[in-house]
């Protein structure tokens, strides 16, 4: 009875729910350690190099946050879709079309309008494009019953091919044609269209001293350097963080958000409550795609400043964003630390490669294991939830037997 009583404690249950993804990551890293041992590398050394590389220096931290930005944006879209119980596997394609339109807009408008305006147009354009790319499979599912997992996978391939077509043809960098190399990438966007970096903002705010001049040491020096000195860190991170808060408000404080969650939890009940399930399916897929498109737009104006190989731009974020969203418990705010963690793993993998000669791709395998563990572990939260319900029902129905037993 004692143990049962313990499990009936809702606070303890909540804690377990939060712990499960953490255990999933630890489990995945342990299997990773076995792989490392099999490859005759020292796991402790490898993981130390990984985490130190990702989190200990200003440049490591900057790269981690630069990667966390698209992860978070894609992850937010995944949160919305999965909350509505539609499975969006198409973030890769949505990100690519967003990046393509952003590049086209930036190149076309860059010299004609003030930079800040072009940036806004680019971000909106990318978002809209991604939204359309997500809404199409949503519409096909709502109206024609087309399985969204398959249609989004197909839409990914179509986006990749459109990307190649545009980058080999209409959008190719004229310099590439002149040089005769014909590498499929676009020209660089005008510098006025670059999203400000943190160092630009710091300068604008009046922070001009370097950490050396301030005689900072230790981790404080790295943090100061991260925020003030020139790194790759750009303000796309701030956009993503603001979006996370907005998505939280949207899903839990607005009627539309409530309906999206209702459709996801129980479409039949939602329909009886007068909610148009189809409309919210299209809406959630569209929003999901919009965030992936925004991620693509931010990658272009914030980081790459030009479009190149579609799959190199999307860089698997469409899939690793799913990992971040799942790890963040499909909660917009939970997705923030999840994105930083997985951004760190991606960056750290590179450092690990240099330290112990274990290729960075191991991180992809570890991320895959995290997904498998997280979705597999959900059975225990479901079991506990149903046991809780049945135990409560039992004690209500048969208090005498309970007491006697």
């Amino acid at each position, binding site marked *: 009875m004692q143990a049962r009583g313990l499990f009936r404690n809702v606070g303890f249950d909540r804690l377990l729910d939060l712990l499960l993804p953490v255990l999933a990551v630890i489990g995945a890293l342990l299997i990773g350690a076995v792989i490392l041992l099999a490859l005759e590398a020292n796991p402790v050394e490898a993981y130390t190099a990984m985490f130190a590389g990702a989190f200990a220096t200003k440049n490591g931290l900057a790269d981690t946050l630069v990667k966390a930005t698209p992860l978070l944006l894609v992850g937010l879209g995944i949160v919305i879709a999965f909350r509505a119980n539609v*499975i969006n596997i198409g973030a890769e394609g949505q990100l690519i079309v967003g990046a393509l339109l952003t590049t086209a807009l930036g190149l076309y408008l860059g010299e004609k309008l003030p930079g800040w305006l072009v940036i806004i147009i680019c971000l909106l354009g990318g978002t809209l494009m991604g939204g359309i790319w997500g809404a199409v499979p949503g519409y096909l599912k709502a109206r024609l019953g087309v399985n969204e997992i398959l249609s989004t996978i197909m839409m*990914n391939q179509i986006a990749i*091919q459109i990307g190649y*077509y545009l980058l080999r043809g209409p959008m190719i960098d004229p310099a590439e044609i002149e040089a005769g190399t014909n590498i499929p990438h676009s020209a660089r966007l005008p510098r006025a269209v670059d999203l400000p970096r943190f160092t630009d903002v710091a300068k604008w705010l009046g922070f001009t001293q370097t950490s050396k001049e301030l005689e900072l040491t230790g981790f404080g020096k790295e943090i100061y350097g991260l925020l003030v000195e020139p790194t790759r860190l750009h303000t796309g991170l701030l956009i993503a963080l603001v979006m996370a808060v907005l998505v939280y408000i949207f899903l839990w404080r607005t009627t539309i958000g409530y309906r999206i969650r209702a459709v996801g939890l129980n479409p039949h009940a939602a329909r009886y409550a007068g909610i148009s399930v189809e409309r919210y399916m299209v809406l959630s897929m569209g929003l999901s795609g919009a965030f992936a498109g925004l991620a693509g737009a931010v990658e272009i104006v914030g980081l790459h400043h030009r479009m190149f190989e579609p799959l190199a731009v999307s860089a*698997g974020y469409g899939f690793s964003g799913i990992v971040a969203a799942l790890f963040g418990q499909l909660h917009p705010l939970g997705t923030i630390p999840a994105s930083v963690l997985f951004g760190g793993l991606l960056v750290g993998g590179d450092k690990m490669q240099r330290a112990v000669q274990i290729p960075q791709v191991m991180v992809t395998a570890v991320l*895959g294991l995290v997904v*498998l563990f997280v979705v597999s572990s959900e059975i225990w939260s479901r079991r506990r939830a149903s046991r809780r319900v049945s135990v409560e029902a039992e004690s209500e129905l048969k208090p005498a037997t309970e007491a006697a037993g």
Partner: protein
Amino acid sequence: MNEGLTVLAILVGIAHSGIRLATPYLYAAIGETFAQRSGVLNLGVEGIMLMGAYSGFYVVFKTGNLVLGLLTAALVGLVLGLVMAFVSVTLQAQQGISGIGLYMFGLGASSLLFKTTLGTVEGVQGFPEIRMCLSSLGFSSSFCLADIPVFGEIFLGHSILVYGAFALVPVSWWIINKTTWGLKIRAVGQNPQAADTLGVSVAKVRYATVMIGGMLAGVAGASLSISLLNIFQEGMTNGQGFIAVALVYFGSWTPVGVLVGAMLFSLVNAMQLWVQVLGLNLPSDVAVMLPYLLTIIALAFPFKRALQPAALTKPFERGEN
């Protein structure tokens, strides 16, 4: 040169390549058909294919033994199928998402193994083309049956794995529609509660089908690395595993339907190859898009949904309902 002859030669070339290129689609999609008919969507086919492609290639590269390479790929696929079955049947995880996990694991692990054990792209002597030459029977003639105009040029001169893939179509049709076990598969996919009541072990059937699907996905990968291309590269399956999953929907969960879909995709791929070979100035990127568009359109036909196994993606637990 006669223009009509050239066109014929090109068409023959496209048909020959189309048959070759259908091989990985057929293995993977027929395997997936078994899994889906029993109610399990294995979206991790792409990852299993990559692991199969790597392991088959590695064994052949080290030992030169093609059969051993093929068996290794099949075994690796079987084991990964077991993992997928455990996750989706026993742990009842959401199948679309767990498949993505398996895909990422296979992609990462095969690249990791490639980089640590091989490092560079190597070639192997893969399964030979069966050209059926008279010289092998002791004749002095250099004539081969594969040289017979049109028929021989299209249908002969492929490797044993290509013929194996096409043989799988009638075999799997027979298993699914004409055997007791096939009946169990269909029952479990259509109405697991009823099957369970009649004493069919839902879990056992699903484990078996997902593992068969995994094994065939492993062979599909190997068909690329030790028969069609004879190399291993990171991510060399290039989305074919995902297309295989879609082909099962496209083909209405029947082996013959899968065959039609696989041929469609492979013929378009073959055409694209020939456009490049001939140096034609066609936007081949656009042509490559067509089968994907067509698949989406095909998925939209309402009769398809009626054919879908009713319990697809739904985990089974006794005492539900």
